[in-house]
């Protein structure tokens, strides 16, 4: 009843193809953006911003990256952690070499390095498909992990093999390093993530998104209508890795403040993959849902018992988190293999016809 499209007629194809064709969606999106930019900095605690909201946004961006590759193009990748790491280390080196240039520029430039590495490791996709391609991406992941430890130049020969983020400013306000406030960092993350999500949605709706989905659904038929398979797959790797690289750079520079090679291990790859699966393969919105759930759940599990008056050790909480995570994945796959995004769609559908059942 509230969510009806009745009466909203499209009078041009451009309107039909718009990002938010339904008025309620447009309004909703504006409200969310307003809340994100205004309400959160005013009302949310630094803890909430730094431990929940910012990382969810950053991981959502990585999940979007992986989703473009796996959900839209059908190329399973287990190298996400490595590609994020490339972005982080590239940003670090760029910041070291060009300290005068704005850090946001470096973060975005770092994405290109990730894209290059991703394209390189995507080359086998011409010959290899499906599960075997996943193993090739595993090779990339392990190799990159090894590089992050074994190439001291990457972390400026720091004895502890980790990187410390230097202070950088934007309009004279510190945005990275120990002096930057969580709110400042969060606002920059929010802007970058929003912009890049919009760009991703443009790609998906247009020619390139269709060619990706065609390759995913039936690559033989895609070849038939004139799609060049290798070019399409490599583009998917490049764009996906770009997103993961930027996410990695943001993770280090705008959230953690430091990193070690372990931050970009195979476990990171699995984490992002779970976000994509649970959120919904092939859905940008799902990437956000997945990130929120997978990231938020351990935090909830850690603090919920305290709220109920039970106390458990952090170790036990972690074990239970693992178990719950695993059980959740299985549960979702049984109940809704298309993830939270599909549940959301079903919910919207119900909202459309409410108060009628169907």
């Amino acid at each position, binding site marked *: 009843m509230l969510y009806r499209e009745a009466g909203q007629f499209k009078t*041009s*194809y*451009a309107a039909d*193809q718009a990002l938010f064709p339904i008025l309620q969606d447009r309004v909703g999106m504006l409200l969310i953006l307003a809340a994100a930019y205004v309400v959160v900095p005013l009302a949310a605690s630094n803890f909430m911003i730094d431990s929940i909201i910012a990382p969810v946004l950053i991981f959502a961006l990585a999940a979007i990256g992986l989703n473009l590759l796996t959900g839209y193009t059908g190329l399973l990748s287990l190298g996400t952690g490595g590609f994020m790491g490339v972005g982080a280390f590239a940003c670090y080196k760029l910041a070291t070499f060009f300290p005068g240039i704005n850090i946001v520029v470096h973060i975005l430039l770092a994405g290109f390095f990730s894209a290059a590495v991703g394209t390189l490791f995507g080359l086998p996709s011409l010959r290899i498909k499906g599960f075997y391609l996943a193993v090739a991406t595993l090779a990339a992941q392990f190799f990159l992990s090894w590089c992050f430890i074994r190439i001291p130049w990457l972390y400026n020969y720091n004895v502890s093999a980790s990187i410390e983020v230097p202070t950088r400013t934007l309009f004279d306000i510190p945005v990275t390093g120990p002096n930057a406030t969580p709110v400042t960092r969060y606002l920059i993350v929010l802007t970058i993530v929003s912009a890049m999500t919009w*760009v991703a949605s*443009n*790609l998906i*709706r*247009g*020619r*390139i998104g*269709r*060619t990706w*989905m*065609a390759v*995913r*659904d*039936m690559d*033989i*038929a*895609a*070849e*038939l*209508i*004139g*799609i*060049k398979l290798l070019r399409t797959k490599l*583009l998917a790797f490049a764009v996906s890795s770009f997103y993961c690289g930027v996410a990695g750079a943001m993770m280090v520079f705008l959230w953690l403040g430091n990193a070690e090679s372990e931050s970009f291990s195979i476990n990171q790859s699995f984490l992002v993959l779970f976000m994509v699966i649970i959120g919904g393969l*092939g859905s940008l919105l799902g990437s956000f849902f997945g990130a929120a759930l997978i990231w938020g759940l351990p935090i909830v599990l850690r603090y919920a018992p305290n709220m109920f008056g039970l106390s458990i050790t952090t170790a036990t909480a972690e074990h239970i988190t693992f178990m719950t995570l695993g059980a959740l994945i299985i549960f979702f796959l049984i109940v809704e293999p298309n993830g939270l995004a599909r549940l959301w769609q079903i919910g919207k559908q119900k909202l459309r016809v409410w108060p009628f059942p169907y």
Partner: protein
Amino acid sequence: MRAPADSAAVAGEVLLSVQNVSLSFGGVKAIQNVSFDIRKSEVRAIIGPNGAGKTSMLNVINGFYQPQSGSITFKGVARSNMRPYDAAHGGIARTFQNVALFRGMSALDNIMAGRTLKMRRGFFWQLVRFGPAVAEEVEHRLKVEEIIDFLEIPAIRKVPVGRLPYGLQKRVELGRALAMEPDLLLLDEPMAGMNLEEKEDMSRFIVDVNEHYGTTIALIEHDMGVVMDLSDRVVVLDHGAKIADATPQEVKRDQSVIDAYLGVAH
């Protein structure tokens, strides 16, 4: 029935010529030394009992299979090693026996996918999507809507194709092929699995495409009534070899064809 005089194409120039093509898979000879041609703007039927090599022939023309010997000349250019991408680029479009649609996309998106080759706007505009990219999408959307109207499927255009009944899926697949604005359209059993009404509709579409757009059509079909009615000339294959190549009436009377088929009409 289309009288020979109706189609000026019978005596027209050759669009595609198959010369001495042989194809085998391991020990199995799928096609043995077959030659025939397809003239511009004609409707050429390829018929024969099951296993005769008809689909393999289309696959060779399309570039899926590379023949062990022989060559294909298309628009005057001889090609011995054509890949599907080259065929698409050159103006050959195709439908399949088992519908090869992109199941994750709607009917509209499937047909829009057929416009991929015609879309020029580069990567940057795809990222930003203001102005030029949107204009291009709209321009191609117009063309696709023409096709959707032509095929009488506007009601289902936003439905994911996996949910459509078989007959409609075949129509969407035809739409995707038409979206490529091909010079040569290869149809592999377009009527398979359809009832009488659907067959009449499909026949009408095929005739319209041929007459209205002047598209050359090569089709594999088992329904003899359709073959007789629609085609200008017929090639008959049996066990990989060509056993007849003439107008429908001549082929109908040809004893070797009758023997190969045992004269069964649907």
